[in-house]
């Protein structure tokens, strides 16, 4: 007989009289998933607040440059103006998944917006699902907005699929580069496909498409310049590294840029900034220090010249300044000017104080400059801000603490990293090692179990 069915004739007193418990709900102490932007106070940890735009498109008062971009993309998709300022700063593939994993919120995981369960969708997410469901019926400008929005959410599989649908519905599959819309969609499709599939075939298709766009005289200059810049970077830095090709594409892009008028529209300033930042990869590979500095100075001038009179303009400006400052930090380190790299790292923090990655960058820079204490502080701040860099920041913090002789602190950080990412082999081995030093039986036992089950090689 179960407790609930117990017979009152057994003489027991009324349950309510005897078992006056604290009144909390029965077993499940956690709230049901919400369906709108209603009361979300039950689940608002700091990390949830910081990353909510990624999770369900909710607005957050604590937005980084990246999450501001999501808001800007959503706003743009709703307003559907005739002109679409590009979102410049996109997350890497898998960022959303990493965030959800660290938050323990895998119920929000999806490759397509419609895969999120209806009871979990906010009003905003439901709108995104409506747009993707009726994608073919949207005007071209709206289709671009929706694809851009999916990009900002790191939903690259959805980007690939939607771009394909856009090309098909417009009858553009045969010759997508015939129009700028087709070229735009094809670029998104192939670039996203390359990020998601990570296959040589997808990658080569992406490269080939960029080359075709850069050479297509009938396409808008901005598109061709962007394509050319992508190729310069691709041949300068990645596994496709080819200095000759990089130089050739730099020359081609220079010719295109000669006909470009940055002063025509404020968004052209952003492209101009990107241009000077992109082409400097060639002299960087050639070791031409003065030229690199000169070109990055010009990039910075253009980015700083972008207006910031509205929220949209300010978002765009920060979107261009962010990667530029990252590049300038690398430049300063490359030039051997560690003080300058520190100063720029701190500027980047001022620009984007809620982005954990900038604190990791600053920590690295301080460490190179020999300031271990400050590096530890910056890694800690990155760790506090958390996803999707919880593991990396805790790992780096652990290494820095261990180097400083704080074994207990380091061990705690490796254990915390493992809690966020149980597959972190390096952290498991470090935890094993330090747990033995500290005679911490609990951590040792757990780390031993983890490490013995993990492969010796990386899976990613």
């Amino acid at each position, binding site marked *: *007989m*179960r407790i609930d069915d117990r017979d009152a004739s*057994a*003489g*027991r007193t009324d*349950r309510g009289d*005897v*078992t*006056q*418990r*604290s*009144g*909390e709900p029965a*077993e*499940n*102490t956690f709230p049901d998933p919400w369906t709108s932007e209603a009361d979300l*106070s*039950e689940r608002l*940890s*700091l990390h949830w*607040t910081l990353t909510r735009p990624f999770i369900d498109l909710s607005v957050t*008062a604590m937005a980084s440059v990246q999450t501001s971009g999501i808001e800007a993309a959503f706003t743009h998709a709703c307003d559907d103006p005739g002109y679409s300022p590009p979102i410049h700063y996109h997350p890497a593939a898998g960022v959303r998944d990493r965030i959800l994993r660290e938050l*323990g919120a895998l119920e929000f995981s999806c490759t397509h917006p419609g895969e999120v369960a209806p009871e979990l969708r906010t009003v905003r997410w439901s709108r995104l699902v409506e747009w993707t469901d009726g994608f073919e019926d949207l005007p071209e400008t709206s289709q671009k907005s929706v694809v851009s929005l999916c990009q900002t959410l790191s939903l690259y599989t959805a980007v690939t699929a939607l771009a394909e649908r856009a090309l098909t519905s417009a009858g553009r599959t045969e010759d997508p580069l015939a129009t700028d819309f087709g070229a735009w969609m094809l670029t998104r499709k192939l670039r996203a496909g390359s990020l998601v599939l990570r296959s040589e075939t997808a990658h080569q298709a992406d490269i080939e498409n960029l080359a075709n766009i850069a050479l297509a005289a009938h396409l808008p200059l901005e598109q061709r310049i962007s394509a050319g810049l992508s190729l310069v970077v691709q041949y300068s830095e990645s596994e496709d590294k080819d200095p000759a090709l990089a130089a050739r594409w730099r020359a081609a892009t220079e010719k295109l840029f000669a006909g470009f008028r940055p002063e025509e529209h404020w968004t052209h300033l952003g492209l101009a900034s990107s241009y000077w930042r992109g082409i400097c990869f060639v002299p960087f590979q050639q070791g031409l220090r003065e030229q690199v500095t000169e070109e990055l100075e010009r990039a910075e001038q253009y980015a700083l010249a972008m207006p910031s009179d509205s929220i949209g303009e300010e978002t765009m400006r920060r979107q261009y300044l962010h990667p530029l400052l990252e590049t300038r930090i690398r430049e300063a380190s490359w030039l051997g000017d560690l003080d300058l790299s520190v100063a720029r790292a701190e500027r980047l923090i001022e620009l984007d104080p*809620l982005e954990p990655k900038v604190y990791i960058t600053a920590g*690295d820079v301080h*460490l*190179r400059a020999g300031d271990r204490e400050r590096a530890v*502080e910056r890694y*800690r*701040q990155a760790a506090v801000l958390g996803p999707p860099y919880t*593991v*990396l920041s805790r790992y*780096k913090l652990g*290494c820095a603490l261990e180097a400083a002789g704080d074994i*207990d602190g380091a061990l*705690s950080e490796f*254990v915390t990293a493992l*809690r*966020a*990412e*149980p*597959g*972190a*082999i*390096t952290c498991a081995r470090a935890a094993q090692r330090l747990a033995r030093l*500290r005679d*911490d*039986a*609990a951590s040792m*036992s*757990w780390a031993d*179990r*983890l490490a013995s*089950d*993990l*492969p010796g*090689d*990386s*899976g*990613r």
Partner: protein
Amino acid sequence: MTSGFPGLLVAARPAAEAGPDAPSRLLLSAYLDLGSRQDDPRHVKGVALAYDEYMSGPTTMPLRRQPPGSMRRALAGEWPHERVGTEDPAGRPGDERSERWQHLCDGLEAWPDLTAERQAALLGLCNALGYFGVTVELGGPMADRVRGAGGEMTTDQATRILLVATAAARIRGSAAESLVERSLAGLCARGDRQARILARSYLLEHRGRRGDPRDSAGAVESLLADLHAPAGNGTARDRLVRCLGLLACAWSFDRAGDLRRFAACVAEARDAVGTLPDEENQVREDCRRSVAEARTLVAMRSGEMGQAVDVHREIVESDPLDVHACLEHAALLEHLDLPTAVGWYQRAVRLGAPVTGLAFERLGDVQMRRGDPVAAFDAYASATSNDRRKPSVLRKLAECAYRIGQSEVARWALEQPDSPQERRGGAEEGHPTPAWSVGTFAPGPILRSAARTRTEGRS
């Protein structure tokens, strides 16, 4: 350009025993599956022992340390992805139950058909797991029936009543209070000598915890007189009961501020526990732990912090995986050796549940004392995760955040509502909880005294 660190390798498929709750999830797994491992903390082994007693022997639970009333809620908060079963063992879904857990559920279903001894052992198991509501629901009516009947109570009846009383003492509300009083009163009137001493000890403690004026000098002196009177057949259980009775008196003297008699009672209790035979291992070790805690507090009250640390070291050395012991040791060390205290707080953070939030908060406090606001910021931020939004911690987080220029985080912290746990009245804190009968999983007297000493030292 590299940072000089070795690369970070991440496996595509993590190990089976990994997870956000480890290693505490492993250490405390008995609370979810009734199993035990060699390297578990002692209180976890006590859960497995309670199961063994349910399956094959009389329960020793009335003589052992029991968890606080908030235990299962605390675990549910620590492990949000686990269906802990906060109110009823049947709350664990069928496909997640171990074989042992299913035995427990089957036993609850078959309650009326169990023998008296088995019922007592089942109540003991429920108490060990923190299912105090279940104990009261099943055993409360029985306790009232036995109380209403005449004659001397049997051992099993007395055991069941003691378990019901200790369970009811962990449930809030006047009905539960009334059940505690009348159950123990009945036992005082009709139990055998051992049962009467235990009942009076529990009553003394229960009333003292609540500041009940009936926690009077008269009750203590009367109990002491009985404890000193030559009686009993000198069995191991007699000596255990005597030890527990002396501790109850000791805590009463402590509440009254009588350090001399507090210390004297504790010393007597220590002598009593020293004579216990080996075969009652868990009970003996629980008793020893309680005596060691009392001795630690005697040293603290006497201002001998170094001695307090030395005494307390016996506890952490005998039970190194008990997170409460780590927290207490860290709190004691704060007065003597701040860096080492930090190390112990970090160990407590690694052990985690069921006091992860408290461990992080204390770590944050000590980092602030060391003048490291960034480390404190990190610790306080960690203390506020998992819906643990204590107002005091949020305020501390805000203060640190402002200090290090994280003004947006500070604003966020100050704007937070209380967490669901806080609104529901969360974990019990603040009660002057004597160690041996109501558990020390909540901040016990050592932590509170250490905090007071720290505050007085600063002022």
